[in-house]
């Protein structure tokens, strides 16, 4: 929840009434430069601290990655992968995982509860938890597998891009904490420009395929990565190459809706006309029986004598 005003909401889940659009805001973005990241987890720690969340102290299952996955309390997670693209050139790619704040959010599209998920004019996608019914559709709808349902209150949670901080002009907690400025925050235009300078630097250091990860399949995202190997996002602990909202959600919340409504409407109309035209001509059982009885009776009786 943030201190952004209601007129900043450009989209609400499961709502057809039009959104406000008087205010013109610049879109923000968080740029995560993986080539500068030392995997120190200051961002993880800052996220817990700012949001007053704590997670379980678990066990080590053979990795630096702790906790092991995103949870309702762990909204960002450093994921570590060791790759050897060339002989004798090992790389330890450490990616800060978390909500990508898509321009076309799959979670919002999939959500059946009105106003449980909103998108602000600055691009941030936020969960309004009081409206969440815990159905889990957002998890299915997310191309990046981000939201998590809490076992405690059955609601979905994820990174808010520190909408509360951003609304008062501060950068997200993770960006503030990052010691190497691997995380930068600003307008999306500025972040794209910054990314370009980083890509040039990486090219000079031999990373020919360095690039910006801002996937068009979801309309672009408000959390972007500078990748040393932009042609291989899969190297970065399963970052999807060309993420799109799943066809099922698209259809179910997309074409399926009007089709279903039309279907419903047509059925109702058909039913009415059928009743009006064919209805009165139909004979019901009781009448049928009575008619039969009357027909089968002897003539004297019928006269009523």
């Amino acid at each position: 929840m943030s201190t952004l005003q209601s007129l900043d909401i450009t989209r609400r889940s499961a709502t057809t009434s039009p959104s406000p659009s008087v205010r013109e805001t610049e879109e923000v973005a968080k740029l995560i430069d993986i080539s500068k990241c030392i995997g120190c987890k200051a961002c993880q720690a800052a996220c817990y601290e700012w949001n007053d969340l704590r997670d379980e102290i678990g066990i080590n299952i053979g990795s630096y990655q702790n906790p092991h996955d995103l949870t309702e309390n762990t909204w960002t997670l450093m994921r570590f992968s060791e790759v050897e693209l060339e002989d004798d050139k090992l790389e330890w790619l450490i990616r800060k995982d978390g909500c990508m704040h898509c321009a076309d959010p799959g979670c919002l599209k999939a959500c059946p509860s009105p106003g449980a998920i909103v998108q602000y004019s600055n691009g941030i996608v936020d969960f309004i938890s009081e409206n969440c019914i815990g159905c889990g559709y957002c998890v299915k709808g997310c191309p990046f597998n981000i939201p998590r349902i809490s076992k405690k209150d059955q609601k979905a949670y994820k990174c808010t891009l520190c909408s509360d901080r951003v609304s008062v002009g501060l950068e997200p907690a993770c960006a503030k904490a990052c010691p190497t400025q691997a995380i930068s925050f600003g307008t999306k235009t500025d972040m794209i420009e910054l990314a370009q300078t980083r890509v040039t630097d990486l090219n000079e250091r031999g990373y020919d395929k360095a690039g910006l990860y801002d996937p068009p399949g979801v309309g672009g995202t408000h959390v972007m990565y500078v990748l040393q190997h932009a042609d291989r996002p899969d190297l970065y602990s399963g970052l999807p190459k060309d993420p799109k909202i799943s066809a099922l959600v698209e259809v179910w919340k997309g074409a399926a809706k009007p089709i279903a409504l039309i279907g419903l409407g047509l059925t109702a109309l058909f039913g009415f006309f059928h009743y009006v035209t064919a209805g009165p001509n139909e004979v019901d059982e009781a009448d049928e029986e009575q008619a039969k009885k009357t027909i089968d009776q002897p003539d004297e009786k019928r006269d009523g004598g």
Partner: protein
Amino acid sequence: MTNTWGDIKNANLVVIMGGNAAEAHPCGFKWVTEAKAHNKAKLIVVDPRFTRSAAVSDLYVPIRAGTDIAWLGGLINYLLTNDKIQHQYVKAFTNASFLVKPGFGFSDGLFTGYNEQKREYDRSSWAYQSDDDGYAKVDETLQDPRCVFQLMKAHYSRYTIEMVERICGSPKDKLLQAWQWMAETAAPDRAMTSMYALGWTQHSKASQNIRTMAIVQLLLGNIGVAGGGMNALRGHSNIQGLTDLGLMSNLIPGYMTLPSEEEPTKAAYLKPRGFKPLRPGQLSYWQNYPKFFVSFLKAMYGKEATAENDFCFDWLPKLDVVYDVLRTFELKHEGKIHGYFCQGFNPVMAFPHKKKIINALSKLKFLVVMDPLATETASFWENHGQYNDVDPAKIQTEVFRLPTTCFAEEDGSLTNSGRWLQWHWKGADGPGESRSDILIMSDLFLRLRDMYRKEGGAFPDPILGLHWPYKLTDAPSPEEIAREINGYVVEDITDPKDASVLQLQAGQQLDGFAQLRDDGKTACGCWIYSGCFTEKGNQMARRDNSDPYDSGLAPNWAWAWPVNRRILYNRASCDIEGKPWNPRRKVIEWNGKSWVGPDVPDFPPAMKPAAGMNPFIMNSEGVARLFTLGLMKDGPFPEHYEPFEAPVANALHPKVNANPAARVFKGDLEVFGSADDFPHVATTYRLTELFHFWAKHCHINATLQPQQFVEIGEALAKEKGINNGDTIKVRSNRGHIFAVAVVTKRIRPLNIDGKVVHTVGIPIHWGFTGQTKKGFSANILTPYVGDANVETPEYKAFLVDIEPAAPSV
């Protein structure tokens, strides 16, 4: 550090070796990121493991733990053979031209003068030839076979690239690539910075590890220049402060030394500390030692210290031997020390050979732990099953716990790696009954003084006579102590040419150590800190971060020792005429009348370059030492010695494997493991998420690294049938631990002289207190031997074996 954190952004090449800067100093590491992003700097990481620093490097070179001198010795040989040195710098600013006595030599792993029985050297042959005036003889042509340059060339000629590959396991192509990039910084307008830490200091030849890189940096002309330097990355936020204030057992503040029992008078003590210049026209600033020393005694004993009683010299303890931590625990182990004040230290977890530490503590009559946390040491007597298998019934030690406040709960200063003294203010009250260390120590002192006053004792004088001038007797404030440390005028000081002119008034704070005197008219707690709290106020509290020259020096932020100088030896950033080697990165320069620039000159401000005074003003020669005379216990040139537990014999001289001058106690020699029983090289280290044994007490930190693990390479894991996440047992000759195995590509097997050697990585953090899952102290495994010069234990290279274990943890 000789340089400063912000200056690292000026480097063209950053070399992280003997440390893991990104891991242990993530915030300071931002300056490396800056150097890369804005100065097109390259980063080389040399480490047994591919670390978080290596993850952002341009070149990673693997190395066997404990072979840094061989690696760097090879580099020295490469630079000298290919003549890739900063010639003018080496000639003018180092002792390359100095002639060494004919008696000095080296053969078969030993320098001249070795006594095998005592395991020590008679260092008298390690000296310069002198002329009739007592000055050292030099050969400016650098051709004389007895000159340091030629001796060094000969010494390192054995360190061929093939030899380095055999000893270190570093592949030749990577060695050459690294050495080429480093050699490029011999150019006067290119600088390389060396960032190191415990990867060098925690070895039995630690001091020499560092010395070898210092030689490299001097040959390349990288000392005293922007973006250069020997940059020690200190651990604890105030560990620099600890060593500066002389908290090592043989030191007094400002790196002066306690007298030995062979120096019973002040005159005897000062005699070998004369530091007369060894070349004409040199400053040899340590000549002022008596001024620092007497001012210190005045600060300690106030009006009791007079010229007549040698300023209470008799009240200082005299050392028979050095009481370093290894020795004191040995003495406790032998039952010869009965009581122990353990302040801000956790030896059960931090010290090698845990079993010995527990035994030692169990023999004490009393133990006082002063700490903000309930540490393992404070609970050494508790049984925690396999994590601390002791029988409390058998331990008679009386343990007192005095909870102290933490840094955020008190005012005070912290001194960082860059020598910056930064004042901090109390942010919150300490919890419960916690009290600041100052208040606890004052309380103890006042009670003791009272008892001595009433009851007398063996030698109460230094206690009764201790200068205690605080406004509130039982509550000295940090500011009052800071003012004493800065130093003040005790008696009016007049112009020596005209006694009616008052220069300094009694009671006023001093501006710096240049005002110190040896006649008792000044007092100063720590001469190198003089200037931190002057009449202008608390300089450490300044928070102006402006950087007018874009130098990274931040001259108005806090206060750096000495005299707010940010880059040491900065006169060496200019040639012999006073012109900067690199005009685009000036530190200071001679403008015809004086030395000016972004930094405070490390040189008399008006001293003309033509006078021939050299930049290394603290050395009697005025120049930096490639050859260190008799100042190091184990040799005037660094030499490759194997760790005390090594997988192979010393390839250079198998008859002298490990450091011949390192002290080893008898019981410990017997528990060194052999390569036959323990084939793998083990090394201990730290993780970003957990600071030593503290941060595990914080929930968030515990979440980020919840459980003890050990890192092994994929090849070793396959050999032993260990899968990622399995529990394994790691054994040394001193004990064993269980931990989760993290199987990784980042540790490769090394080819050491034809033998495949695996490395086992052991992070140190988990114990039996705190919020993480309980763990075994990594120091159950480590050997009880330290550096020959300063006794820092050899945590970084020893031997273990591993095997799969049933998950019992």
